């Protein structure tokens, strides 16, 4: 159904080459200091092809994702997937930010509707939702393919070069309206799909099977959790996902044990590896997805261990040419 579109980013090129692709996630917080994000991005080099940079996740105001994505590309040499959500910006602001992203050499955009502003740390903010993810996808597609904005006004100079990602939630129940919605996004011009965190392998495979006919690469989201606190918080506050009770209980048991921090760390790691390594293996074996999107925010040390267990080789560590290409000042 979808024709093979031009790959602008390394991520898209790798997906199109048929390799099992991994992407990571970086979550800048409410700060003016991006050094920890850069360090995390650096430590992910070689393990993942590109990193998502979140845009005000859960509607908590954070440092601009566009700025962070640019800084990460420049300082850490890591290709980014710039997340942009409709909750905070109208079509004018979205257009201008996307043009800015093109100027800064960002090649991947993930279009999101965004969590409702009521769920965030400034619940009385005016929720924008001028567009939704489907319409935003169409808008970016038009910018890339036609060099025009949403209303058909010309963009001067070269057209922006983006590969467009969209989100899907295989946990949705019922799944049919969710699938049909993602199909709308694909029809409106998505290049690839990244899913919300998945825990249930059967459900995920079922989703991928249903989705196969649309021949759009899907990266399945997984979320190794650093501690019981993280898991519980995720379960409670992230809309649309629930952590399986058995897994949550395992984390809880570790938390309640009176052992040293290092031992706890060791146990948490083991739970994650035991749960997610077979998950990744199974996904890879199924051949239904293009790869995995590992959202181990602030928990990057698990990735090497996890990938070793899942028998996924690390790529030769080379600094992306983006580090040079996207720095206008140097």
């Amino acid at each position, binding site marked *: 159904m979808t024709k093979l579109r031009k790959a602008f980013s390394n991520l898209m090129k790798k997906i199109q080459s048929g390799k099992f692709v991994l992407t990571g996630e970086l979550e800048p917080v409410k700060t003016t200091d991006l050094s920890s994000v850069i360090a995390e991005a650096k430590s992910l080099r070689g393990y993942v092809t590109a990193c998502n940079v979140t845009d005000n996740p859960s509607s908590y105001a954070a440092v601009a994702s566009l700025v962070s994505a640019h800084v990460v590309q420049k300082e850490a040499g890591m290709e980014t997937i710039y997340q942009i959500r409709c*909750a905070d910006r109208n*079509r004018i602001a979205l257009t201008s930010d996307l043009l800015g992203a093109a100027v800064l050499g960002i090649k991947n955009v993930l279009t999101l*509707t965004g*969590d*409702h502003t*009521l*769920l965030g740390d400034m619940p009385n903010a005016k*929720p924008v*939702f*001028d*567009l*939704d*993810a*489907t*319409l935003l996808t*169409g808008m970016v597609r038009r910018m890339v393919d036609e060099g025009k904005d*949403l209303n058909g006004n010309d963009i001067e100079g070269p057209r922006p070069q983006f590969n467009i990602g969209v*989100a*899907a*939630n295989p*946990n*949705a*129940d*019922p799944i*049919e*309206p*969710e699938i*049909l*919605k993602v*199909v*709308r996004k694909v*029809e*409106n011009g998505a290049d690839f799909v990244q899913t*919300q965190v998945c825990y249930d392998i059967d459900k995920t495979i079922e989703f991928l099977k249903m989705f196969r006919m649309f021949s759009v690469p899907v990266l399945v989201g997984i979320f190794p959790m650093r501690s019981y606190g993280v898991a519980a918080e995720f379960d409670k506050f992230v*809309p*649309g996902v*629930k952590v399986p009770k058995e897994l949550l209980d395992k984390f809880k048991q570790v938390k309640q044990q009176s052992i040293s921090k290092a031992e706890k760390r060791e146990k948490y790691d083991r739970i994650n590896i035991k749960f997610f390594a077979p998950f990744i293996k199974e996904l890879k074996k199924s051949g239904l997805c293009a790869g995995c999107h590992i959202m181990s925010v602030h928990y990057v040390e698990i990735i090497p261990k996890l990938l070793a267990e899942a028998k996924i080789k690390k790529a030769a560590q080379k600094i992306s040419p983006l580090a040079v290409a996207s720095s206008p000042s140097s």
Partner: protein
Amino acid sequence: MIITTQKPLEEIMRTLQSYSNIMIVGCGTCATAVQTGGEPQVREMADKLRGKWFVDTVVVEAPCDERIARKDWREIQRQGRGKNIDAFLCLMCGAGVQTLAEIAELPCIPGLNTHFLGKVERIGLYYERCRACGNCHLGETAGICPVTRCAKGLMNGPCGGMIDGKCEVGGYVRDCAWFLIWQRLKKFGRMDLFRKVRPPREFGLEAYPRGIDAIPSHRIGRETTVMGPEETEKYIVKAIKEKAKQVKNAKSQDAPVVK
């Protein structure tokens, strides 16, 4: 129905402090139906305020209809009741309060909070059903309005926050509008409508303040005038006469009518 609830009595009393003669005005339409500004509520309010204020009461059939409100105000003045009034305490929606304020040119204190256009399930149970967006899509969404009932007002839902057909806003208690739309369109055998990508909303239609001039040839920018009611009326008469003259001239010259 326009859904209103009564403001706390303390707030009303505080706002009324600087006045001594008040007229409590009820609304015979929506506020009567939801029992916030009908005759019993007006009477009740009068009982609470009497002693501290000189109180007169009236229920206008539809205070937001200028024609009716003006007629009733004239009648009140004819009866000599309007003379000493310092302020109106209005038990009606914001549209009524403002219409009354324009006509009577007296301070109008709102006694109610206006919430939304909604359905009345029964007294005390009201649910929003229309956002007055100016571009109704209900024919395509199985009679369920996504603009109103989706927390994000999405045209292409459901969003990723739907679990078991419930909405992420408010802790998965309320139904996801797009889930309901999907369910009902499926029942109607109209999944083609669900699969459709709906264009962006036209927020230009919602740029406020909004107004509709029913007869385009009489479009005279009345809303923007700062004239009193009598002058405004004179102005309208003048404008209509002028327009009529124009049309007559155009006809006599056998030219097409100017729109």
